[in-house]
């Protein structure tokens, strides 16, 4: 059974944001006048709300505005605009305070990665060497589940590569900027470590 206080408490959000009708408001006021606990609730709610309200508006970083406008211009010119995170990251680096150096770092990383990718299309493995799938032995549910596991794995792998690329570059520039001794042994892509 809902007590009176619970009922009032449920109305506090709207009470505080002035969304209650006059009658409801009067009901709450009347209860508050008599109930210390609910007054305390109200005070706490007001305080939290005030805390959130006082959170400062953070300035949008300058480079971001520039990136956005650049993307808009690219779009107007019929060029593809960066939607995916990885490409947005490249845009970000190219207009970062590190300017061309940052972009060169990205290009270098891409080149290094390209160097280890196969240069020609691989031949398909000999599928006949794998046992013929007898689909009555593997249920549809199992295949479905396996499919998702596969997709997850591929997505995960791709994401690690994507994020690592960006982070390793960021690490390098952070080290350069702060000149900390390398007890971080963050390493750029490529090479044997």
């Amino acid at each position, binding site marked *: 059974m809902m007590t009176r206080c619970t009922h009032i408490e449920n109305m506090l959000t709207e009470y505080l944001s002035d969304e209650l009708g006059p009658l409801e408001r009067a009901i709450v006021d009347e209860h508050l006048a008599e109930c210390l606990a609910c007054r305390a609730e109200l005070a706490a709610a007001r305080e939290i709300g005030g805390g959130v309200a006082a959170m400062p508006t*953070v300035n949008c970083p300058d480079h971001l505005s520039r990136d*956005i406008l650049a993307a808009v211009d690219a779009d107007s010119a019929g060029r593809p605009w960066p939607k995916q995170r990885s490409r947005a990251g490249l845009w970000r680096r190219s207009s970062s305070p590190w300017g061309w150096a940052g972009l060169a770092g990205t290009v270098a990383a891409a080149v290094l990665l390209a160097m280890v990718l196969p240069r020609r299309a691989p031949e398909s493995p000999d599928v006949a060497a794998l046992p013929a799938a007898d689909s009555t032995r593997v249920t549809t549910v199992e295949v479905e589940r396996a499919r998702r596991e596969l997709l997850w794995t591929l997505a995960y792998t791709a994401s690690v590569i994507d994020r690592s690329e960006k982070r390793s570059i960021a690490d390098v520039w952070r080290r350069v900027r702060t000149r900390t001794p390398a007890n971080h042994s963050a390493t750029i892509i490529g090479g044997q470590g």
Partner: protein
Amino acid sequence: MKRTFFQQVLREHRDRVFSHALYSLRDRDDAEDVTQEVFLRYWRTDPDVPDDRIGAWLTRVVHNLCIDHTRRRKTIRAYFGRPDPDAMERLVASAPDHQSDSLSSEVMAAMEALSPETRSIVLMHYEQGLKLREIADLLDANVNSLKVRIHRARKTLREVLTNPGQPRLAARGEGG
């Protein structure tokens, strides 16, 4: 849409949009990505809204994109790129109206305990001053479920603020 008009909209709303994304996602890189996406969508969609409703349109998009973004991260589970609270705090500390006083900093930290979606709704209601009904319209949501969500969020924040040693993970049944 004319570029000059877009620039004006960008100038007027970028800080608010960025802040919203930053406080919801609690990660600087993610907030930048989402902010960029929000304005690019505005550019591409060129929605037919009156000037005084552009802010609301942007708010809805930033809210939805924050949720999408979170879902995507969770799915990939590449927590390798997890939220960097230091980066966020540094950014906030550099904000023009930043006060190093305690309450809003504590509340900001306590919001870690809420889900990104709830954070976003809490921001809309308390920071941007949107009424429940307005939020409900914007998000196509139910006023009552919003009320419950905000109520629970306040309770969670309060619990975290009064028990600072015990971080509370975002509860499952946190509200609609």
